[in-house]
């Protein structure tokens, strides 16, 4: 099994350790606004355990995925709302 995984965040390539969550990839891409709230505030992960829904991003075209609960896979395309 490879030690690292390559994926893209907003079109930029990112490399993460194998087993890391998508939330890590977004942070490593230096994105702090994972999504925009309904009134436009930048938001990032809060609870780290899948219940706050603040870390939601679009993964391979599917919206509203909790990035803290999804393991990075090679070639994943992650888009933030930022």
């Amino acid at each position: 099994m490879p030690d690292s995984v390559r994926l893209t965040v907003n079109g930029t390539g990112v490399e993460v350790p194998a087993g890391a969550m998508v939330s890590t990839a977004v942070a490593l891409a230096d994105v702090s606004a994972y999504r925009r709230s309904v009134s436009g505030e930048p938001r990032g992960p809060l609870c780290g355990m899948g219940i706050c829904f603040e870390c939601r991003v679009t993964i391979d075209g599917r919206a509203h995925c909790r990035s803290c609960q999804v393991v990075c896979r090679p070639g994943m395309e992650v888009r933030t709302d930022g």
Partner: protein
Amino acid sequence: MGNSFDVAIAGGGIVGAACAEECAASGLKVAVVEPGPIGGGATAAGMGHIVVMDDSPAQIALTNYSRSLWMARASEFPPDVEFVATGTLWVAADEEEMAEVRRKLGVYHSIGVRASVLDASELAKEEPNLRPGLAGALLVPDDGVVYPPCAARYQLERARQNGAVLRIGEAAASLSGEGIKLRDGTLISAGITVNATGAWAPELTPGIEVRKRKGHLVITDRYPGWVRHQLVELGYLKSAHSTTEDSVAFNVQPRKTGQLLIGSSRQFGVEYGAIDHHMLTRMLRRAQEYMPGLADLSAIRSWTGFRAATPDKLPLIGPCPGNERLYLATGHEGLGITTSMATGKLVADLILRRTPAIPAEPYLPGRKQEAHA
């Protein structure tokens, strides 16, 4: 200020609120009694569509009149009322339904309601997430959507500004021509008492022909632009029309937030509010038949509500036969939000003996109700 009013209204839902607002604006001394949060019954459970519906001449007259009242006030509402003129698309699945679309076009035009027919490709352009292969649709552009609990709250606030007394958190124990008796024995005495308690109306006025008709709804996360209009299948009318069977019909509505409301279902004879999974599944499958992409959308909550249904599909608005001081404003089935405004007007008109904008006879309690199968 004692406990004596011109009008005492039991029920602080959208219908009670509209009655309170109109009566107070007309100079009447109004009291409203509501045990739960304002708009906590069917008002909170339904979709919140404002739609001209042509199941019968009396229904189209009432919905058209009421819709025009909503439209006239569109710019007045605060943001939390979320009024948007999304328009309705009555979707035709085949040529037989397209013939029905064209018939409806005639009906709407005959009463001055703007409507047009979209063919298959125009429909696909308007709503790309509808499945290919549909025949077309009737577009009724001035229909809208609203967030009903906040609309009810707004109207009750306006009533209060005109001197209405709101007794929220208190429950009516009984109604009579004398007024509303509360659970603690207090009598809110009034010249006229109005039963606007929706599905609970027969509990307070025994013998009236209002039955609970359960419905389910699902709301999704935000997908702005995924659906632009209120979408309804033509079969919706058949589903609403039936007085016996459980049924579902495709009905999807966008909220201003970009969330989608997915309905609709109808059941008689069920009193509990828990989700009926077989109905929920039927309803969601029907919806996916029209919009297959719904399958992948994230649903965040489901719930149920009880419509107040009458045998002839028209609401009961006006005095009870044999008790001129006790009014009904109930039985609106799936059109409570739409026809609340007109109901308020009619109730005030009847109390003040003003000439109503549309004839009140078809909705009077005590009319002969033939159940249409």
